[in-house]
């Protein structure tokens, strides 16, 4: 019934606009490629010792569930780290299989209709089928996050509407649905048939407008997710899906089977979270995170403190703006510096060889050129099957990406040295290496430096994508900001990245004084 692809709301669900954004064919293609590569290359997972790694998808509810699991384990004496907002369903599933993460939260509907799509697994067989992947699941956490139909609480109360079937008696109600819901086979078209709904006023509109419409009374009914933050914010009533039209999306934790031997207490602790989170609780937590902009880590800590009898309360270290900026700066600089230094060390010799050994010229320039044409996002994704997630694969991708400008400028710089100068150097009787070091490289220095500068600036920008594979850096606040529809947060990543690019630019102006001989900088 549901189309098992990226339009699945469980992938990225928080802001209504995100629903629309994710339906882009490119990400679907790269996801397919990724799955293919993963299937091809993945062997056994690389299990990490002791510390439990919790993952989460890139949407608020997923991040909160990740934080809950992390705090819960920690407060019960199990070391845990949370690698937040790593990506979509496939990404997390593969990270779980490979052992990059030990657990993450997902939904029954997503398992059946996306991860195990086409295998015709019945809900009862889920544990068995997952076991063949080396994965176990907890029982549902207690809430179902699926498509739902909602109305203003007072309006529903006045009309006596509790379930979707009740809508049948009110043909004059005005429906305003998200465009996606209007189009989806399992959205309005089938809902209307299943419940034989008679309403004639049915409009497709942006989700934000639909909420506004409910508020001002221009529409009466809209679609939403059953744990959406807006339910609390706008005082909505979620109508009972009495004919069970929408598939179940029961939230639960998936964890690696080997956790049972490696950290039996962790597996047992996860089970203690089963059935503890109601839809109302989840909705309230989503609302605090999305609407009140309370950090997910605090929302999760408050939840645990309130509902569990913990030996000692979960405390959250509030990150200040500056400590967060500093952390992201460190991560970003590390990505840039390591990848750029490696690129310099490799690319300059490659450029030299391309000039000196004629037979290699086309191969070298061609290869680095082809690497450069791979979209940076795809290059990052290609790294995952080879190296997993986090900083190192991002560094390798950035390194590869940084090669071309340096190789090409080294090649061009050496190539453009005037013939008479080369002849003079040759005539002196200097051996080749001395000639390269003392004559050719200094003469090409300006061009090489310009290549490094280009690489560095591109690298600073591209490194923001590293956050997509868990490498952190300035991309992290950008990702979170996009997820939370929070421009301020996006700017906390975008502005420092731009400033860093300018700083890099300026540093290279200084570097020219050091690396380009004075005689080349003087005007005659």
């Amino acid at each position, binding site marked *: 019934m549901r189309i098992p692809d990226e339009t699945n709301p469980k992938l990225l669900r928080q802001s209504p606009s995100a629903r629309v954004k994710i339906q882009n064919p490119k990400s679907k293609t790269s996801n397919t490629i990724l799955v293919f590569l993963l299937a091809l290359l993945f062997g056994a997972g690389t299990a990490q010792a002791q510390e439990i790694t919790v993952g989460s998808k890139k949407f608020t509810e997923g991040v909160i569930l990740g934080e809950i699991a992390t705090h819960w384990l920690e407060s019960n004496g199990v070391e845990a780290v949370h690698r937040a907002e790593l990506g979509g369903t496939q990404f997390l599933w593969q990270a779980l299989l490979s052992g990059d993460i030990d657990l993450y939260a997902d939904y029954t509907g997503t398992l059946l209709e996306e991860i195990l799509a086409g295998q015709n697994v019945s809900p009862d067989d889920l544990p068995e089928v997952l076991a063949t992947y080396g994965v176990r699941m907890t029982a549902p956490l207690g809430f179902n996050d699926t498509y739902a139909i909602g109305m203003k609480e007072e309006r529903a109360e006045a009309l006596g509407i509790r379930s979707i079937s009740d809508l049948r008696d009110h043909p004059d109600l005005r429906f305003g649905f998200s465009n996606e819901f209007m189009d989806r086979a399992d959205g309005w078209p089938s809902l209307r048939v299943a419940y034989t709904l008679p309403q004639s006023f049915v409009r497709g509109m942006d989700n934000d407008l639909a909420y506004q419409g409910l508020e001002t009374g221009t529409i009466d009914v809209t679609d939403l997710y059953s744990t959406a933050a807006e339910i609390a914010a706008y005082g909505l009533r979620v109508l009972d899906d009495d004919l069970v039209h929408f598939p179940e999306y029961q939230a639960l934790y998936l964890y690696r089977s080997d956790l049972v031997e490696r950290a039996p207490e962790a597996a047992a602790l996860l089970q203690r979270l089963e059935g503890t989170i109601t839809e109302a609780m989840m909705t309230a937590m989503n609302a605090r995170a999305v609407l009140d902009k309370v950090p997910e880590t605090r929302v999760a800590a408050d939840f645990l403190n309130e509902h569990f009898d913990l030996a000692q309360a979960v405390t959250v270290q509030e990150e200040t703006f500056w400590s967060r900026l500093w952390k992201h700066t460190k991560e970003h600089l590390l990505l840039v510096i390591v990848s750029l230094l490696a690129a310099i060390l490799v690319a300059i010799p490659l450029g030299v060889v391309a000039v000196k050994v004629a037979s290699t010229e086309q191969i070298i320039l061609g290869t680095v050129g082809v690497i450069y044409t791979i979209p940076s996002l795809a290059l990052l994704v290609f790294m995952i099957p080879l190296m997993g997630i986090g900083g190192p694969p991002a560094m390798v991708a950035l390194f590869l990406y940084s090669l071309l400008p340096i190789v090409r400028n080294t090649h061009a710089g050496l190539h453009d040295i005037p013939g008479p*100068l080369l*002849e003079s150097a040759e005539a*002196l*009787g*200097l051996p080749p290496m001395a000639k390269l070091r003392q004559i050719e490289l200094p*003469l090409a220095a300006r061009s090489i430096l310009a290549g490094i500068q280009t690489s560095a600036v591109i690298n600073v920008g591209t490194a923001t994508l590293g956050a997509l594979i868990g490498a952190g850096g300035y991309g992290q606040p950008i990702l979170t900001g996009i997820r939370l529809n929070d421009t301020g947060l996006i700017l906390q990543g975008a502005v420092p990245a731009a400033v860093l690019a300018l700083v890099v630019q300026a540093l290279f102006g200084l570097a020219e004084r050091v690396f380009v001989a004075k*005689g080349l900088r003087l005007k005659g």
Partner: protein
Amino acid sequence: MLDLQGVSKHYGSTTALHPTDLTPASGKTTVLIGPSGCGKSTLLRLMIGLIRPDAGTVRFDGTALGAENVRAVRQRMGYVIQEGGLFPHLTARDNVTLMARHLGWDRARLDARVAELAALVQLPEERLAQYPVQLSGGQRQRVGLMRALVLDPDVLLLDEPLGALDPMIRSDLQADLRAIFRKLQKTVVLVTHDMGEAGYFGDVIVLLRAGRIVQQGALHDLVRTPAEPFVEAFINAQRNPLDALGRQEG
């Protein structure tokens, strides 16, 4: 010192040099002259092993030039091209001392040699700290000559060393160069396309045309007994400077 036997060079279908024998007189100045494209530079490059002949042998001090000894031989030759061929990223001094430093000369020895050469080519010492772009054309050429002489080579090869200079500076430098050649008594091969310059420098003048030596000898041999009409035509084409020279020497 230098000896070329049956040396020839082709570039694709163009013949830069037909099989040629040439033995520049040791301790004397030999001038290669001829119209543009006749093979003068090719001949000079063959002597210092910058290009390898298609056929024939180049001998230096009795030993055939080959890949294995070419770098060692180059250290016993100085090579100066138009504009001096100075490295723009190095100061005049560093240009001059580059090879000597590579060979591990100590500071005192370098300083002494640089001072000696600066005096020889009459370059003010303060110019040595400057970069090529800061020097005049004539000064660059003097630095180029210092660089060629720093290891005290047996042979000095100069390819149109005065070609890019304006006439006043050029005649000053001509006089200085001739004085230096006379004083050092090195085997000099100098390329020019100017008959006056050839006569001024050359103990022996070698006239080339289209990759062949047409005639070689002293200036008066070429003038009085031209080997073929081309020699006469070439000399006549450059009569004016010759007349001036005739008056001066007469």
